[in-house]
């Protein structure tokens, strides 16, 4: 009896020690994130409220509580916000439609052929290894007026003669879709790869057609992967502006990130840039929270 009590006291001490050990392991990285993420976010929020003293030189601001920056920025750029989130949403849906069959082919159809699986997986992550600016640039040439895509589509009469693809919202969304496709495909692959293939076979045994099995069994079971993939695509896409600048570069394709960049570096309007960036952060945070609440957090990444 007494030994049992003793071990439990000993165990408790061991657990406390283990707890301290855990904290020690987490502490350095935790402090780094506090100093270089949490505090900077507050820095940005407070900078968005700064005021410019009258007659001060450009780039000179003092701490204040000027909420007017927010209304000024939002009344000028509300349509840019809508465009950014619209583009990001379309790109996310397109990446899901393109990425899911790839993930399904590699993870489910090619099960039991590890070498082929491995090599196709390399193809999926291959874009990560080449410079993304170069990839965006090459889309610019592929979609160019004299490029083969435009001429082929014109010959097939899918596009009327003289249509341009570059400098259009289409080009920007296509570039974004391409850029974030691996981020969509990999989590879905990881999810499908772990899925018990007997569940899919069971659907067939119960006389479900291929598409019924897919809709009723495979798709619902792969929701965590879809959720992680859509978040990993949507979040960076909403803030991206490299595609908008390199593939669009006109007033119909301006994204929020582009405005934040130029407010900081061209207009030297730090409060305006900080306000826009804060609004972007808060909207995405709300979207993510709603998403997580709807689908659960278990396998978010």
């Amino acid at each position, binding site marked *: 009896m007494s030994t049992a009590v003793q071990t439990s006291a000993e165990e408790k001490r061991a657990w406390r020690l283990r707890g301290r050990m855990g904290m020690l392991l987490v502490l350095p990285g*935790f402090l780094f994130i506090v100093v*270089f*993420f949490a505090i900077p976010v507050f820095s940005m929020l407070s900078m968005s409220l700064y005021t410019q003293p009258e007659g001060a030189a450009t780039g000179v601001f003092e701490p204040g509580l000027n909420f007017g920056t927010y209304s000024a920025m939002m009344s000028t750029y509300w349509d840019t916000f809508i465009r950014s989130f619209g583009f990001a949403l379309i790109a996310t849906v397109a990446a899901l439609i393109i990425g899911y069959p790839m993930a399904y082919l590699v993870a489910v159809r090619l099960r039991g052929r590890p070498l082929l699986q491995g090599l196709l997986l390399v193809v999926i992550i291959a874009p990560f290894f080449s410079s993304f*600016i170069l990839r965006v640039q090459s889309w610019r040439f592929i979609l160019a007026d004299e490029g083969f895509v435009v001429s082929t589509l014109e010959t097939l009469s899918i596009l009327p003669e003289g249509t341009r693809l570059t400098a259009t919202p289409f080009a920007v969304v296509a570039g974004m879709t391409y850029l974030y496709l691996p981020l969509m495909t990999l989590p879905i692959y990881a999810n499908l790869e772990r899925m018990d293939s007997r569940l899919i076979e069971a659907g067939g045994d119960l006389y479900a057609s*291929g598409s019924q099995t897919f809709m009723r069994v495979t798709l619902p079971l792969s929701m965590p992967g879809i959720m992680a993939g859509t978040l990993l695509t949507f979040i960076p896409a909403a803030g991206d502006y490299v595609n908008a600048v390199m593939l669009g570069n006109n007033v119909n394709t301006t994204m929020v990130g582009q405005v934040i960049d130029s407010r900081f570096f061209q207009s030297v309007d730090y409060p305006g840039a900080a306000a826009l960036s804060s609004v972007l952060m808060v909207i995405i945070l709300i979207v993510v929270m709603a998403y997580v609440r709807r689908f659960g957090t278990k396998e978010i990444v």
Partner: protein
Amino acid sequence: MKQLAHRIDISRWFVPVVAGLSFFYLLVPIVYILIYSFNDSGRTNLTWRGFTLSNWQNPCRPAGLCDAFINSLQVALIATVVATVLGTMIAFGLERFRFKFAGSANLLVFLPLTAPEVVLGASLLSQFLNLGVQLGMTTTVLSHIMFCISFVVVTIRARIATLDPKLEEAAADLYASASTAFWKVTFPLLIPGIAAAALLSFAISFDDFIVANFNSGSYTTLPQFMYVAARRGIPAEANVIGSFMFLLAVSLVVAVQVWRYWRRRSLERAV
């Protein structure tokens, strides 16, 4: 009945065809980059003007290109090492220990993943402006460590979660101390996960434009060099460097895949 058979047939070839097209779509720009690294382009790499090897022989010809390349390598290496060490510690602490504040630490690690690069870059820039910090290599490295660290934690936690705790228990049964069990059993099993996280960090940092653009000042990384050059046309030598890094990474990953495949087969044969 005939109709049903027809349907199943469609779903049979539908997936490979769509996926095949998607794989093609993924590879087109990469092939384009590779081919145009051999373009006898003159100053800008806009149209095909004949095959040459001279870009590959003198990749440093355009002013500033190789400096930017070296800058990016340095930043990515430092950021990868620091982010991987800090991230592995966090992952292990959060996954294997229970302690107070674990919940808030968890949230703090997750939050940076919900911030797009612009927000991460802009908030750090606000901080550096407030403190009057001179922007340069140090601020670039710090911003990249921050950018990578949460991805490292997520990658390694997933790996730790799939480890069988019975292995550590077995080590303890064989009278291994906690630290011996960790270094002899757990850590070796984690190495593939840590390597994957490090590779991911390196790729993220090496290829980042937005975060660096906000925090690097006049220090130029390779993506920044290319972004600025793109207005006039990126030189073919940039394609050479891009292609070189790509081929290096792909051959590394393919070699690992093939090695794992052969090892598994020979193990199976031995059994």
